[in-house]
């Protein structure tokens, strides 16, 4: 196919200046590979595609006729299969413990393998997307389209020697790479993937999620403390400080979700949004923003990744970790981003429902699509925004997010009680609340920003300009005057 690319060069493109550029231009793209294939291969591909479509139409017909509903082979809800298995095991008369253990193992392994598989492909997706944002190509050498790059990275990391710094607390030093994984996995428990497909559908699911996410900070702190390194300790202290600040906005923003849905159970929250044909994001835009922004701070994603800010403190809490131990920290960061995506989708974007489409398409695919969408926003932010300063972030949490969140909890409490008493159709009331809350959000945010001293940038924003207010000697002098 490379010969095909050279025989048909891009029109009006000058000869690539360097061998590197030439190689990049010759990389096979999907379209060019398809065009370059011989006729039988192309015909076979078309037949396969048509067959795939036919199978999908047949499945669609099965779904519409209702012959699938609730049987163990109803692929729209994998909970049916495990439920059927549990019932079959119970019929054998071996006691309820066996069916419980078997289904629990299947569910746990399902979550583990899903997260593991996504971690393998996720780094590739993130690097390719970031490359697109920065007008680069990204990893494209190992395997087709560079898909095997994460595997190559993992192999390289495993081969590396794991160093223990002199003076490190040896017993504690080996714990954190394992400990950070526990909350990242446990957090997936209550997320509902379909009506019967929630692994841990407890009725305090929301509080459980917040509690579990607060445990990750301990592993990070142990990592920073046991490394016997100033940069690592600085990163750990920053993480702890951020966690103390941003736990509060997360909890308060979820409080208004609970006020509207009247339940702490994640499946109930999704069901509420489905029965009212709405997304809580439309009613509670500020809560969505607060949850999303605070979550980026909690899981150390850019723009809030000051705990491992490379330009300031080397790599923060995992400075001293080498080999696969560092790799585990990086992997868990990605897993946490996906988990936050799942939580944002469940709390604010309707979870596995999509206005009736979940009857036709497997709901877990819809949830996976929403998770990818939120994850894309994470990557987008990482490719776009610079990092905040530590004091900026703390001030933003305490002076801006927390007061406004408290105000919005009051507003949504009033609205929730109106909604519970109103005789009007739900969609009218909720729509009115959506409009009112959008207006209130704009007004209150502008008002509070003026009070708190945030200023909108002046002048022509399209023009590049040298700034004298951020960083450098001037800022240091100003700080010395005020403090």
């Amino acid at each position, binding site marked *: 196919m490379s010969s095909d690319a050279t025989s048909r060069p891009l029109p009006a493109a000058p000869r690539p200046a360097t061998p590197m550029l030439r190689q990049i231009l010759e990389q096979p793209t999907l379209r060019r590979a398809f065009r370059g294939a011989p006729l039988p291969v192309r015909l076979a591909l078309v037949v396969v595609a048509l067959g795939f479509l036919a199978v999908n139409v047949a499945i669609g017909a099965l779904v519409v006729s209702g012959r699938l509903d609730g049987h163990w082979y109803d692929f729209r809800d994998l909970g049916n299969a495990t439920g059927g298995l549990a019932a079959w095991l119970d019929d054998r008369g071996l006691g309820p413990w066996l069916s419980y253990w078997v289904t629990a193992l299947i569910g746990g392994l399902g979550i583990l393998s899903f997260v593991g598989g996504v971690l393998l492909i996720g780094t590739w997706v993130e690097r390719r997307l970031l490359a697109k944002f920065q007008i680069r190509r990204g990893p494209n050498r190992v395997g087709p389209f560079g898909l095997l790059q994460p595997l190559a990275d993992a192999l390289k990391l495993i081969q590396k020697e794991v160093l223990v710094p002199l003076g490190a607390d040896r017993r504690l030093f080996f714990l954190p790479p394992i400990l950070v994984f526990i909350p990242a996995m446990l957090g997936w428990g209550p997320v509902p993937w379909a009506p019967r497909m929630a692994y841990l559908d407890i*009725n305090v699911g929301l*509080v459980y999620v917040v509690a579990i996410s607060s*445990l990750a900070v*301990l592993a990070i702190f142990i990592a920073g403390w046991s490394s016997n390194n100033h940069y690592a300790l600085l990163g750990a202290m920053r993480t702890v400080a951020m966690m*103390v600040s941003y736990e509060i906005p997360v909890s308060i923003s979820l409080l208004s979700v609970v006020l509207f849905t009247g339940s702490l159970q994640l499946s109930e929250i999704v069901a509420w949004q489905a029965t009212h044909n709405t997304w809580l994001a439309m009613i509670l835009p500020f809560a969505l923003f607060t949850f999303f922004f605070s979550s980026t701070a909690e899981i150390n994603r850019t723009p809030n990744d000051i705990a491992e800010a490379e330009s300031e403190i080397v790599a923060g809490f995992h400075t001293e970790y080498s080999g696969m131990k560092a790799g585990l920290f990086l992997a868990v960061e990605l897993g946490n981003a996906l988990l936050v995506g799942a939580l944002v989708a469940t709390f604010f974007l309707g979870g596995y429902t999509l206005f009736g489409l979940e009857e036709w398409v497997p709901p877990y695919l819809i949830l996976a699509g929403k998770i990818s969408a939120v994850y894309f926003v994470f990557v987008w932010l990482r490719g776009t925004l610079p990092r905040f300063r530590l004091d900026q972030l703390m001030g933003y949490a305490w002076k801006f997010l927390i007061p406004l969140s408290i105000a919005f909890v009051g507003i949504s409490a009033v609205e929730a009680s109106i909604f519970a008493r109103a005789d009007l159709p739900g969609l009218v009331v909720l729509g009115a609340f959506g409009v009112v809350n959008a207006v209130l959000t704009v007004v209150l945010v502008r008002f509070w920003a003026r009070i708190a*001293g945030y200023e909108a940038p002046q002048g022509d924003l399209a023009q590049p300009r040298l700034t004298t207010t951020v960083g450098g000697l001037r800022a240091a002098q100003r700080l010395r005057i005020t*403090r």
Partner: protein
Amino acid sequence: MDSTGIVVGFWVLAAVTIAGALGVIAARDLLHAIFFLIVSFLGMAGLFITLSADFIAVAQVLIYAGAISVLLVFAVMLTPLVSRDNGNSLYIAPGALAGLALAALVVFVAVDADWAQLSGDALAARSFPDTAATIGELLVGRYVLAFEVASVLLLFALLGAIVLVHERRDDDAAAARAEDGAAGDEEAA
């Protein structure tokens, strides 16, 4: 309620909790002691789960393992004598007294309780409702006074902390004079 799983779970969790608590006393390093304390907290949360108190269990993880431990870490990190040996504490005698008092309380409750009503068939006959909703209704219903008193106490603690760390007014005035107008607004707010 007395199935094998619950019994095994109880003994394992009790062992974890007690081992963690012993580790707190035995550890020479203050930070190790804190991490043992967290293990003990998590074991307690597990014990609450075996008692069907799901909300209390989650709150235990959220507040004790998640928040209190972070505060402890902060307090230890900001203490000048972090690397000091944990052994030579001044408070051994009062600590032992307080522990004895707590143990006496637990023993009294255990002896006083009517176990016939709290185990076996009598326990199985009771229903365990949604504890979060029940606790919420009790907090703003029957125990609203205690709830309000506790929140007022917390508010005073918050105000006290702000007063303690806030700079004096002279410093503020000096800072406001040095700053420009926008930052002056910030101080007023």
